């Protein structure tokens, strides 16, 4: 009901009263119009603004998958007209996130969703990391689990630190003494 503004709910009750008291077709018609308005108001559009200035308009059922946005809506509904500013998310990342949310808001079997997820994460490393950051900022638990688990699986597939470095293109900046110390510390865990 919070999607209806006060004036609209007022008119609804007024209409009902009218309907009851006057009981003519006009009131009836008016009542039905208000009802249909109420239904359309249910799928409210939310505008999100990215850090690089683009605006995305999405259904609130999709946007509410992000707990951050859900809290923002709850706190301050006046800013819905301007759009929620997302300082840490760029437009290409947000469009990918919206794609995920749309799919998961739609009706689909679990198996189908799993398959779709597996395809969804077949992107390059930097995109995955950006998605992780966005999912963390927007607090979308499903996306965060999915992306983090993908990276965790990649790490688990690496035999040792060297392979991890090669996979993720990370430089080894240890001094020989530090390397020696680490090796001694974790010697028991190596094969």
């Amino acid at each position, binding site marked *: 009901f919070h999607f209806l503004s006060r004036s609209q709910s007022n008119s609804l009750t007024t209409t009902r009263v009218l309907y009851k008291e006057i009981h003519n077709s006009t009131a009836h018609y008016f009542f039905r119009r208000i009802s249909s308005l109420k239904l359309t108001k249910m799928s409210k559009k939310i505008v999100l603004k990215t850090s690089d200035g683009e605006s995305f308009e999405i259904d609130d059922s999709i946007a509410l998958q992000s707990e951050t946005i859900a809290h923002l809506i709850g706190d301050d509904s006046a800013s819905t007209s301007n759009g929620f500013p997302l300082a840490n998310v760029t437009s290409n990342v947000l469009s990918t996130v919206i794609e995920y949310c749309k799919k998961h808001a739609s009706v689909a079997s679990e198996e189908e969703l799993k398959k779709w997820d597996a395809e969804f994460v077949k992107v390059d490393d930097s995109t995955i990391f950006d998605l992780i950051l966005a999912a963390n900022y927007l607090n979308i638990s499903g996306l965060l689990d999915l992306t983090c688990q993908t990276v965790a699986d990649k790490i688990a597939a*690496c035999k040792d630190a060297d392979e991890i470095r090669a996979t993720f293109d990370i430089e080894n900046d240890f001094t020989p003494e530090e390397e020696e110390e680490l090796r001694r510390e974790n010697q028991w865990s190596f094969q």
Partner: protein
Amino acid sequence: MEINCDELLGGSYSDWGMKKAGDYKEVELGGFGEDDFLNRMSFSGYQIIYETVNWVASGDGASIWPQQKGNTLFNDFVGFGEISGNSVLNSLPEDPFCMNIRSTLNTISDWFHENQMDLVSESRDEPIGVDQTLFKSLDCFSNGTTTTMLQEQISSLKMNGVEGLGKVTLPEDPFCMKVRSTLNTISDWFHENQRGFVSKSHDEPIGVVEQQMGSSDLDDAGEPHVAFELVFPYLEMRDVLAVEGVCRSLRDSVRKEPFFWSTIDLNDSPLKYRVTNDSLLKLTHRAQGHLQCLNLGGCVGITDNGLMQVLASNPRLTKLSVSGCHRLSTAGMLSILRDLKSSNLLGVKYLITGGALYFTKEQFEELNSLLGADANAVPKSRKQRFYTSCRSELSLEDDRVTDLEICPWCEKPSLVFDCAAKTCPLKDNPCSKSSCRACVVCIERCHDCGSCLNDCEYKPFCFAFSCVVCYKKTCNQLQELL
């Protein structure tokens, strides 16, 4: 170059030339120093040149060209515009090509000194030949060639079989190019960057250099992405330790947050066979006292002593699972808990044994009292436990302190399971929920679906652990695969 023309002009040329040639044997070789060049000249080739230059300058015998002896330098001299008289020779620039000729020639002369090259040979012709070749090589200096050329010349000299050239060590830096320091700088730079080259690829260091140059404008090239830290909770222990060894920033972020280590889950980890008492102690130390949950599922290397140390150093530990730790003993476990309780260090509230420890009734009662629970009280809400799923469970969903219970059938402390006959597909008469509750000894159960196997025609064959239904299902699946 100072040219002493007096001597040159003093007598007839031939006299002068002969005189000089005659003095050749006695003249000390080397000495290209500050002194008069001509005085100390040891290469008669130069004599010839200066003779020639003078001869040309004086305008005599212009038609008679000198023999082909070191022409290039001669041409250089001649090409200096007007040649008139001695003033030309006087006014020849000291070091026209800024080659630091003086010090260069000094170096070479010193070199000759050291090596005491004996260019003298029996006949007079040969020195000239030698000089000619050497002159050519000196001539190369004016073009600014390197020591390698000189080396070539020297080696070609050797090949010409000139006596006395013997073993020659080449001067260190004849052209004052500071080659040594240049090479040092280059090798230092290479060594500094070597790690980067080697770690990236062993095949093409050159290509890597270019790559590094090109990507230096990206500030995160070679650095892990900031989102890496968010992945840590999803990593298994073995991977966490591997990630720690990747680079400095990852190592620091793995170590900095003690609360990340407050739950250590080694349940069925690939490390479970390699964890020792010491390594477990080290791991738990990373939590810096904040360790709360410790799951040692399957860690067969842990003994009573090790566990004692771990528990003593982590008084805030509340949940402990030792399922699968076969080296622990009941008596040991109880003594640990007793000691800790008496010294007020016991924080353990939940102990999961997973069937690894066998308790007598008295021990069970003591365990319950140590953990702060009433052994006889019936728990209010009891979740059904099925033999399949909860063999390696960490958390107890109801308010029991341990996963052991008194079996209703044999009245001994053990893991008690409910019947999952409802989920088992082909059961004709499923047993009632409350009565089919007992330990595994009393009621045999299927390992796959957890339903009871007593009194039913679906009892498995000998040594098979599944009921016939599940067994058939597995067989069908295998056949599909094949």
